[in-house]
C-alpha cells in the first residue's frame, strides 16, 4: 500500500550525496547566522532604546541557537538500512490505551490489532472502566485491563498510569503501544521486532499519520518534518524519541527503569525523613534548658548523622535504619532513667519521705520501661524521631504501584521515559515507515489543547529532569532532547518579533543602529541560506503549515511555559485534558480561542498603515520602513493560517461540500 511520505528507500550513494549537500547548507547557515548575531551584539544594538533593542537581540540569539540545534539534527538525518528479520517465538503484548473514546473506535483498532501477522496478544487498557467495552473485548477475544482497587485515592498518572498498571498484569517480552484511534497494519511487528536483536535496543518508534486530514491540513495536524528528517536526525545521534503511540518497547528495559526509580525514590524518601528528623532534634536541642536533655538530643542528632553517613556509603537502608532505631531506644531509655533520678533526688531533698519513685529495684525498672516506650517518654522530640524512623516507607505508600516504569513526572510520559531509557544506556530506533493511521482533532479548540499538552509536558521535563544535567546521557543525546525543549520557548521570541516592527512603524523606535548596507550584507545572505536549508532538509515534504503554526499559536506556547513552571515550582495543577479523538469538530468560529492573535493582527495591520503614513508625511527612513513592513507581512501571512483553522468544520464535511 502506498501512503503519503512513506519512505522510498534510495541507494546509499544517493543518500550519502544528499547528506553531504545538506551538511554544506547547515555549515553555511550556521556560519552566516553567527556572523549576523555577533555583529548584532557587538555593533548594532541601539542602546538608547535598550528596552526593545535588548529583547530583540535576545530573540534573534534564541533563533540562531534554534537554527544551530536544527542543523545538528539534520547533520545525521539519514535513512536506516532495512531492519533485521523478526525473531521467531518472541512474545508480544499489543496495548490499546483508551479513556473516553467511543467504543466502536476502540474496537475497530482492537480488531485491526488482532489482524497483526506476528503472534501476539491484544489488550484493551480501559481507563474509563466501561462495562460495554469489557463485554465487547470478551466477544472479540482480546484482553481487557482496568485499574484495580489499589488505585483508589492514589495519583492515577493518566496514560502513564494506565500503561504501568497493565505492565504488571501482562507478560510479553515486547509491547506495542497504540492510542485508541491508531489503526495498525498487519506487518508492523514483522518490520520492527528485528531491531531488538540488538540486546540494548529498548524502543522502536514508527511515524504517526492521520487519515482524517485534508491535503490543505488547516489545523497543522500532520508533522511530516518531525516524523521524518527530525526523528531520523535524532536517531542518527542515538536519541530517537518515543512519541507515546505506534512504538514497540522492550519490557525488560521498562521494568529496569521501574526498579531503578523505586530504589531512588525510596532512598530519597528515607534520607528526607532522616534529615527532617535531625532538624527537629537540633531545633529542640537549641531550645532545651537543662543539660541532660541537651546532651540526649545532641547524641540523637549524632546517631542520625551517622545513619545518614552509613546510607551514603552504600550500606543497606534496612540495616542502617535498624541500627539507628536500636540506638534511639537506648537513648530514650537513658533519658527516662535520668529524669527519674532527678525527680527522685528532688523529692529526697524535699524530704517527702517514703516515695515510690526510684530507679532501683524491679519496680523502678518497670517504670523506666513504661516511661521510655514512645507515648510516655519525657523527651517529646525523641518520640517524634522514633516514630519517624519506624515509619520509614519502603512500600512507596503514596503511589498505587511500587514500580512506575513509565515516567510520571510529566504529562508527556513518552519523552520523559525515553530520556531515562537513554540515560540508562538503552538504545532507540526510528523506523521511518507509516504503518499506523490515526485520527487528528478536527476542531481548532481540540488541536490547540493537544499542542498545549505537548508543550506543557516538554517544559515539565525540562524543569524537572533537564537533559543537560541528567547523568548517563551522551552530549549529542543531551542536545537532541534540549533542542525539542528549546523550540517550545519560541512564543516569547515571537512576541518580540511582533512588537519590534510595530514600535518602529508607529513610533519610529529603532532597535537596530541602522538599516543600511551593513545590516543587509549580514542579514540577507543569512536569511536566504536559512530558507534554502529548510527546503533542502525537508526533502519536498509539506512543512509550511508547521512553520505557520509555530509562529501563529505563540499564546499557546507562552501559556504552556507559564503553566508548566507554575506547576513544577508552585504545585499548581495543569488541568490536564485528554485530547478528544472524536466529536472535536467546531460548529462555530471559536474566535475566543485566538483572541491574542486577533489583537496581534490588528496591531500589525495598523502599524503598516502608520508606517506608510509616517513615510509619506514625516519622510521617515524608507529602508527601515520597508524592512519592517516586510517583516510584518511575514507575521501576517503566518497568522493567516488561523483564518482557515477557525472556519474548518471537520474532514467529512469538508469533503462532502466538494
Amino acid at each position, binding site marked *: 500500500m502506498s501512503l503519503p511520505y512513506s519512505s522510498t528507500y534510495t541507494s546509499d550513494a544517493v543518500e550519502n550525496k544528499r547528506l553531504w549537500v545538506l551538511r554544506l547548507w547547515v555549515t553555511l547557515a550556521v556560519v552566516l547566522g553567527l556572523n549576523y548575531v555577533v555583529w548584532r551584539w557587538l555593533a548594532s544594538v541601539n542602546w538608547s532604546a535598550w528596552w526593545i533593542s535588548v529583547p530583540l537581540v535576545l530573540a534573534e540569539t534564541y533563533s540562531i541557537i534554534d537554527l544551530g540545534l536544527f542543523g545538528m539534527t539534520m547533520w545525521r538525518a539519514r535513512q536506516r538500512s532495512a531492519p533485521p528479520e523478526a525473531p521467531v517465538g518472541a512474545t508480544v503484548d499489543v496495548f490499546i490505551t483508551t479513556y473516553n473514546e467511543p467504543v466502536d473506535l476502540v474496537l475497530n483498532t482492537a480488531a485491526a490489532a488482532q489482524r497483526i501477522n506476528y503472534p501476539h496478544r491484544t489488550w484493551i487498557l480501559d481507563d474509563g472502566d466501561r462495562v460495554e467495552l469489557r463485554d465487547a473485548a470478551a466477544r472479540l477475544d482480546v484482553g481487557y485491563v482496568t485499574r484495580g482497587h489499589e488505585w483508589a485515592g492514589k495519583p492515577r498518572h493518566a496514560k502513564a498510569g494506565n500503561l504501568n498498571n497493565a505492565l504488571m*498484569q501482562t507478560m*510479553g517480552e515486547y509491547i506495542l503501544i497504540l492510542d485508541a484511534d491508531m489503526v495498525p497494519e498487519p506487518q508492523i511487528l514483522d518490520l520492527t521486532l528485528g531491531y531488538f536483536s540488538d540486546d540494548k535496543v529498548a524502543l522502536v518508534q514508527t511515524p504517526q499519520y492521520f487519515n482524517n486530514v485534508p491535503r490543505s491540513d488547516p489545523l497543522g495536524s500532520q508533522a511530516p518534518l518531525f516524523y521524518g528528517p527530525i526523528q531520523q536526525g535524532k536517531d542518527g545521534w542515538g536519541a530517537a524519541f518515543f512519541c507515546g503511540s505506534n512504538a514497540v518497547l522492550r519490557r*525488560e528495559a521498562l521494568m529496569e527503569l521501574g526498579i531503578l526509580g523505586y530504589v531512588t525514590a525510596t532512598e530519597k524518601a528515607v534520607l528526607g525523613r532522616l534529615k527532617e528528623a535531625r532538624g527537629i532534634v537540633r531545633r529542640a536541642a537549641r531550645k532545651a534548658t537543662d543539660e541532660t536533655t541537651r546532651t540526649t538530643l545532641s547524641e540523637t542528632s549524632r546517631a542520625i548523622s551517622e545513619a545518614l553517613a552509613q546510607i551514603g556509603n552504600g550500606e543497606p537502608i534496612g540495616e542502617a535504619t535498624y541500627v539507628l532505631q536500636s540506638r534511639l531506644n537506648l537513648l530514650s531509655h537513658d533519658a527516662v532513667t535520668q529524669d527519674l533520678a532527678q525527680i527522685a533526688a528532688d523529692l529526697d531533698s524535699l524530704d517527702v519521705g517514703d516515695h515510690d519513685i526510684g530507679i532501683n529495684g524491679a519496680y523502678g525498672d518497670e517504670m523506666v520501661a513504661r516511661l521510655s516506650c514512645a507515648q510516655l517518654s519525657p523527651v517529646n522530640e525523641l518520640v517524634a524521631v522514633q516514630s519517624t524512623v519506624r515509619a520509614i516507607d519502603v*512500600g512507596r*505508600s503514596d503511589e498505587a504501584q511500587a*514500580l512506575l516504569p513509565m515516567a510520571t513526572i510529566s504529562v508527556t510520559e513518552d519523552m520523559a521515559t525515553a530520556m531515562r531509557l537513554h540515560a540508562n544506556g538503552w538504545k532507540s530506533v526510528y523506523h521511518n515507515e507509516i504503518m499506523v493511521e490515526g485520527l487528528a482533532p478536527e476542531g481548532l479548540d481540540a488541536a490547540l489543547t493537544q499542542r498545549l499538552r505537548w508543550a506543557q509536558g516538554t517544559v515539565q521535563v525540562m524543569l524537572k529532569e533537564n537533559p543537560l544535567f541528567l547523568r548517563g546521557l551522551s552530549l549529542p543525546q543531551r542536545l537532541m532532547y534540549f533542542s525539542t525543549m528549546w523550540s517550545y520557548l519560541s512564543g516569547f521570541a515571537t512576541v518580540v518579533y511582533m512588537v519590534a516592527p510595530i514600535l518602529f512603524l508607529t513610533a519610529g523606535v529603532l532597535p537596530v543602529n541602522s538599516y543600511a548596507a551593513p545590516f543587509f550584507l549580514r542579514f540577507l545572505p543569512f536569511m536566504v541560506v536559512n530558507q534554502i536549508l529548510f527546503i533542502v532538509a525537508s526533502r519536498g515534504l509539506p512543512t509550511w503549515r508547521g512553520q505557520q503554526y509555530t509562529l501563529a499559536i505563540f499564546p499557546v506556547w507562552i501559556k504552556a511555559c507559564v503553566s508548566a513552571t507554575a506547576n513544577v515550582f508552585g504545585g499548581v495543577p495543569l488541568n490536564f485534558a485528554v485530547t478528544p479523538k472524536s466529536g472535536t469538530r467546531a460548529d462555530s468560529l471559536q474566535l475566543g480561542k485566538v483572541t491574542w492573535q486577533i489583537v496581534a493582527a490588528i496591531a500589525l495591520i495598523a502599524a503598516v498603515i502608520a508606517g506608510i503614513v509616517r513615510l509619506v508625511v514625516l519622510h521617515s527612513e524608507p529602508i527601515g520602513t520597508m524592512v519592517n513592513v516586510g517583516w510584518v507581512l511575514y507575521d501576517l501571512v503566518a497568522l493567516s493560517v488561523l483564518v482557515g483553522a477557525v472556519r474548518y468544520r471537520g474532514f467529512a464535511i469538508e469533503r462532502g461540500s466538494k
Partner: protein
Amino acid sequence: MTSFHVDDVRIDLAIIRVVGRLNMVAAPELRDVVAQAVKSGKSHLVVDLAGVEFMDSSGLGALIGALKTTRQAGGDLRIAAPGEQVAMVLQLSNVDRILKPYEDAAFRD
C-alpha cells in the same frame, strides 16, 4: 514452568517457595499468589528463592510489588536464600539496599 508452593507457618506468616524461572511470565502469577496469601491474613511473607535459577527485572518487580502489598496490610516481606544469579540481580539493581536477602529462615525474630 515456574511453580509456587505456599506453606502456612503461623496465623499471619507463610512461606512462598518459588521453583523455576522468576521472569516476566511468572511475575503476574507471583503477584496473584501474594495477593491471595495477604487476603487470607498472611501479612508476613517469606519468599524462598532457593529454587529460582533465573530472575529478570519483571521478577524483581514482582517481589517489590509484593513488599508493598504486605506493608499495606501492616506486615512485611522478606526474601531468603537467593542463588548466585538472583543475588547478582539484587545487587546490580541496588534493591538489596532495601530488600535485604536472608540466608534462610527470614522471620526468626
